[in-house]
């Protein structure tokens, strides 16, 4: 068990280093010059030079890379040249918003997607099935940013039911930060009103983010359910007189859940990636927005940082999925 954990840990570290190398190389293929941006429009060449040397941008690329990797090993992700803050601080500040959003969206995707997938598999070719199939294909095909805009237009502007963007109305003081999740923190603080407003801000972005995920979970679960329902052991269970309900909800679902779990893991990473679009549309102060604004300013340390963080979350998610796999599937359990 110990060696297993150590091995796992080593792969995680290895992958993270790999991602760091990859993103560093990628973001440095063409030289942008963020120093100019922060130096201001009128800055003279020597002022730009000051900033360059302060951030080590005047060093040869190889040296910059060596320094970056050295710092990285000691947990330092470098400094954002735009915000002048350590990237790690910035990430810690913005990550909770993203994580909260992604988790809510994921939950939404799972609690809607799995039962719907199950239903449409059971009533294959029925009206429910047709509806969910349209839903699932649309979900994957619809541009998230466009859907976001349309929903904003309808629910916020036309109907005025939900706020347009942001995490909280600005006059609302956020609850004391404990977990970083506004929903949980406001509940912990016993502030239902804040909870409700935070939730109302969450709804649109979470729906937009979860839609494609919901769709693919639904799709996988449906396909798996159909396949499992035709499998020999389900036939056997039927032949042995086990009730259809039990067969579907317990026997088949558990088997279908395995590939669904894999999809959930996959989609988790994907969702983290799409936050760059959704957070832009909804002005959600998370790492996606941070990445976009940094990328647009050619400020690459934060971009690398965000990529690393997303990669890290993704690995964590996949590890969790693996654990869940082992928990569900006795064949994978170790002695």
């Amino acid at each position: 068990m110990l060696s297993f954990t150590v091995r796992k840990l080593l792969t995680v570290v290895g992958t993270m280093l790999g991602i760091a190398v990859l993103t560093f190389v990628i973001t440095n293929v063409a030289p942008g010059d963020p120093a100019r941006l922060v130096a201001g429009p009128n800055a003279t060449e020597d002022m730009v030079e000051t900033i360059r040397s302060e951030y080590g941008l005047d060093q040869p690329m190889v040296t910059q890379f060596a320094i970056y990797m050295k710092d990285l090993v000691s947990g330092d992700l470098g400094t954002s040249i735009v915000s002048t803050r350590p990237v790690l601080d910035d990430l810690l500040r913005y990550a909770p918003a993203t994580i909260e959003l992604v988790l809510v969206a994921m939950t939404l995707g799972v609690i809607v997607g799995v039962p719907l997938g199950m239903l449409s598999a059971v009533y294959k070719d029925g009206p429910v099935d047709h509806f969910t199939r349209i839903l699932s294909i649309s979900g994957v095909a619809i541009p998230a940013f466009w859907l976001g805009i349309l929903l904003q237009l309808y629910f916020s502007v036309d109907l005025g039911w939900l706020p347009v963007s942001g995490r909280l109305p600005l006059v609302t003081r956020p609850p004391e930060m404990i977990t970083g999740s506004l929903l949980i923190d406001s509940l912990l603080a016993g502030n239902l009103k804040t909870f409700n407003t935070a939730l109302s801000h969450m709804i649109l972005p979470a729906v937009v983010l979860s839609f494609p995920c919901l769709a693919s979970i639904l799709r996988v679960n449906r396909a798996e359910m159909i396949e499992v329902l035709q499998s020999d052991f389900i036939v056997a269970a039927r032949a042995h007189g086990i009730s259809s309900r039990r067969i579907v909800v317990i026997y088949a679902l558990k088997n279908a859940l395995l590939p669904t779990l894999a999809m959930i893991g996959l989609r988790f990473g994907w969702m983290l990636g799409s936050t760059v679009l959704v957070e832009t549309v909804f002005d959600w102060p998370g790492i996606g927005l941070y990445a976009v604004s940094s990328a647009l300013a050619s400020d690459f340390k934060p971009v690398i940082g965000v990529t690393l963080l997303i990669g890290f979350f993704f690995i964590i998610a996949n590890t969790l999925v693996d654990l869940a796999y082992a928990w569900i599937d006795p064949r994978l359990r170790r002695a």
Partner: protein
Amino acid sequence: MSAPLLDIKDYTLDIATFDGPVHVLKGINLSVNRGDTLGIVGESGSGKTVLVRSVMGIGPSNSAVEGGQITFDGQDITRLDPKGWARIRGIRISMIFQDPMTYLNPLFSIGQQISDVMAAHERAAGEGGSTKGARRARTVDLLDQVGLPNPASLYDQYPHQLSGGMRQRVLIAMALSGKPDLLIADEPTTALDVTVQAQVLDLIKSLVDKLNLTVIMISHDIGAIATIADRCAVMYKGEIVEQGRTADVLREPQHEYTRQLLSAVPDIEAKPARTAVAAACRERQPDAPATLLEAINLKKLFKTQSGGEFSAVSDVNLSVATGEIFGVVGESGSGKSTLARMLLRLIEPTSGNVVFAGQNITGLTGEPLRQIRRHMQFVFQNPHSALNGRHTIGDAVGEPLRIQTRMSRREVEAKVEALLDIVQLPKLFKYRYPHELSGGQKQRVCIARAIALNPRLLILDEPTSALDISVQAQILEFLQQVRAEFNLTYVFISHDLAVIRQICDRTIVMKRGEIVEHGNTEQIFTSPRQEYTKALIESGRKTSRAATLQAS
């Protein structure tokens, strides 16, 4: 005698397919009385499974009953609603399935699956649920009854932790948990080892006697039917062509098909009339070396998943003389296929040497290896997967020619047609795809492919075990013909002792990767030296002798 327990009258069933409806069952008439054991035999695809599944109400989804009815215990169950089925399925009629590997849910423990069935039955019977503990006790009891060791600890184990035979016992236990009036067993032993087959058959037989069950058992193995069933029915192309007391049917088959079937069963007791092919062959090729193939201390280690090592073949020595048929027998997993693959260098031996026609081929790579492969060919166990589904038969047969020779396209075409002729397939087949051919035809294609380059040695890895008995007989006979025609030397692998006895000159017996006995085939059969060999022959006899005994 009162009314039969199960009565099938003029039952006709169609299955809708792309090409229109297929008449899978045509006017089936069958009745089973309480306490009867009925066996159904018939070739693959004759409709046995569809028939018994219809009795259970779990037939193919796109099927339509065209006529007739099925009556169970006086009740018409042809068009029963789900509620009605709930009272019958699994409780009054229950079923044991063909392949124990796929009929158990891999994610639930064995005990859980069995006690679920019990709970379902209690609910259906309206008895109200018994406690979990009570169910557990009964489950353990049942597991004990089907002869499983250590039933209490088995309760919490998962299917993958059990061997095939154990799983089949679990399935039997599950089928018995509802104390059914009628038990249907669909080829309960085909997926199992020879030795295990016999045990499971014994178990079913003893249960039938002990619990006074009414049983329908399907098999294409006439021996198995003869062991268990006192009545039997023969199915052919969706029809029941013959039924009656098993002994009668076997002794005096009425229908042409039955006769054919019976004559195709290889007889382990029969002393074969061997033609002296080997000698003739050597005569024709006096310059050929006496020993064509030799294996010296061959050894193969596999890495297991847990990181350890597993010896699939250890220290095997053998020598095959030119022109002989060299037999390899052994139970499943004894390393036969691994050995064969090593002989051909399809997998690398961990150590040891293979000498072919005086040349050590162990170290060969690249071009020399390719050249040597012209002379030794392989016929695989499963013809269904040995052909690439995307190539036409013509492509498949022509492939070795294209790879190994410089023949022009037209020459290849001509040769392919000639080869198809040799294996007795119409020339037009070269435009067909494998899935359009029957198993026997596919195996012929494989053989055509193997002999395309005029090899000297053919290694046949259970060439008939995936085929029906009647087809098997044809293929065996055909192989003999080809051998005579091409001066071939065979290494013939099989777990079917009767087949081995019929055609092999010399034989080795393998157990867990080692040769436990070798020598003249007849000698091994008449006076086996090892316990293992004896047991192997004995269990082979069990199924086979019963057939012949009752027939004679």
